[in-house]
């Protein structure tokens, strides 16, 4: 990924969170807690469980469709980060070679099943995390964390980082562009030049921090970024949380997917 692509990538996810929908309007705390519970539930399935994970696609699909976020965008991002999980998971079929029947008279090695489970879990967890930001906005997530007991200093840090991310990324973009204009081919991309570029970026960042600090002091900064207007839990939030809890418990503890399949088989006969 080139520099510009990376940069616009963050910006795009950020802009998605300006949207206005049922999901966007939910209290950030509800969404953060729901997402975390969802992730734990998904991850808690044993390693040969693939089928029972199917219903869990409902949650990201609902976030995506109700929140009006494009499937293609999320799918691309999931694909982009998939190499590590695939790289580790692909060894399962190699090392776990006992065969298991999967119905229809076919059988495959158990490793493929656990590999599939890793991929399904990967898709679920990654897409949900991305959708959380896309529907809540990063500052929203931070404020929710603050209300849920995260230390103020860490939340302030996250907010600052986020605010200056775009500024410094542009600064870096200018530096990179300057290098690219002056260099041909592979020239100028070595480690030595890199250390100097980053050093320059660092000096500029530090100077900027100093200026920001003075500006903030003159506006009455006292060590914390307050949020104007609190959160309010509405009935929609409670309904969402209740539905989520019911959904997670049902599909975690009852193998309904298989029941559906059996039912369909009965109908067929």
């Amino acid at each position, binding site marked *: 990924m080139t520099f510009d692509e990376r940069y616009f990538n963050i910006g795009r996810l950020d802009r998605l969170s300006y949207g206005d929908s049922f999901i966007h309007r939910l209290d950030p705390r509800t969404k953060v807690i729901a997402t975390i519970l969802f992730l*734990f539930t998904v991850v808690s399935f044993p390693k040969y469980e693939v089928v*029972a994970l199917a219903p869990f696609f409902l949650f990201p699909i609902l976030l995506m469709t109700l929140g009006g976020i494009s499937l293609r965008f999320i799918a691309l991002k999931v694909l982009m980060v998939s190499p590590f999980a695939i790289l580790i998971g692909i060894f399962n079929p190699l090392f776990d070679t006992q065969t298991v029947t999967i119905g229809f008279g076919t059988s495959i090695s158990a490793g493929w099943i656990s590999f599939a489970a890793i991929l399904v879990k990967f898709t679920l967890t*990654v897409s949900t995390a991305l959708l959380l930001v896309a529907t809540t906005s990063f500052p929203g997530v931070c404020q929710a964390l603050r209300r849920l007991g995260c230390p103020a200093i860490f939340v302030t840090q996250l907010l*600052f980082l986020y605010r200056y991310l775009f500024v410094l990324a542009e600064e870096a973009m200018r530096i990179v562009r300057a290098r690219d204009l002056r260099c041909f081919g592979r020239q100028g991309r070595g480690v030595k030049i890199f250390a100097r570029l980053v050093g320059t970026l*660092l000096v500029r960042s530090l100077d900027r921090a100093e200026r920001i600090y003075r500006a903030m002091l003159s506006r009455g900064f006292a060590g914390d970024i307050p949020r104007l207007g609190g959160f309010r839990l509405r009935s929609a939030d409670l309904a969402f949380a209740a539905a989520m809890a019911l959904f997670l418990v049902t599909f975690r503890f009852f193998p309904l997917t298989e029941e559906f399949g059996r039912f369909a*088989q009965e109908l067929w006969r």
Partner: protein
Amino acid sequence: MHMADALLSPAVGITMLAGTVAVGGYASKKLKENIDDRMIPLMGVLGAFIFAAQMINFTIPATGASGHLGGGMILAILLGPHAAFLVMASVLTVQALFFADGGLLALGCNIWNLAFYPGYLLYPLLYKPLAGGGDRPGRVLVASVISVVVALQLGAFSVVLQTYLSGKSELPLGAFLLFMQPIHLAIGLVEGFITAGIIGFIRSVRPDILACAATSRPLSGDFSLRKILITFAVLAVFTGAALSWFASTHPDGLEWAIARVTGRAELPEPVGGIGVVLKDIQEKTAFLPGYGFQSAPSEAIEAEAPPAWPAVEAGTSAAGVIGAAIVLGVVGLIGFCIRLVRKRVQGATP
């Protein structure tokens, strides 16, 4: 390398989150005690700096592959361990949320692997003694290369252990280690040189920055907690190593091995509440994953025996496959309908 949610078991994830939250709370407390308000924007901007710097690629010498900065050690040198830990943690959080690099549950693992080791372990124990006052470029180079290499080795080792203990991957521990450690040795060498290069550059253009960083760094007092944390980390690594040893030689005696290893309280001696809590956490790491890796395959074999069909785990029968297809179809349909309705509504209200 970032740990991913999909490779993680809840027990390992929760344990690492707990460890990270404990260290994060400690770091916040230490910072709050002797904070200079100036630090707050500085930390924020440096976090953004690490991010921006990571977006710049460079060519790794002799390979042509491109790499990017990790940044943990630079932060520790500039900010000291507490602030560096929080900054790195925030960088990893943003990465998890925006790039889906690692996941939210794996965040505990990733912060531990990439922020705890360089800041709390290697900066005070290796970098500082080796670099001395930091005014001799040679020493700084040696110090940063060694400490970054060790930090990355520990980080890579932890990724391997966390994956292994989670039991979702079938990779044998040895092969996985052989794969991860050398790669991270190379990455560590490059990163070490870059770290030294950046520090050298800063020294030549703006020596005041480093001088300021060197003096405004409080890392004294409260030594006990640090000791406990370090003991905990070392212990965790050792129990992990011992466990994996037993696990590989006694495929069936794993529970026994765990009991042997954790049954004996290995902490130096009563270290008060925190020590007990940490040990508790550590025991949880050791116990819960036990069911995951060795027992499952053997059960599957037993279930596989002659009749083959009825007893197999859920998810491996035809009904399971059909059910999954139906459920996915329904989920897809729901999504499609909602999208359709939304379009209608939006079309109706311009």
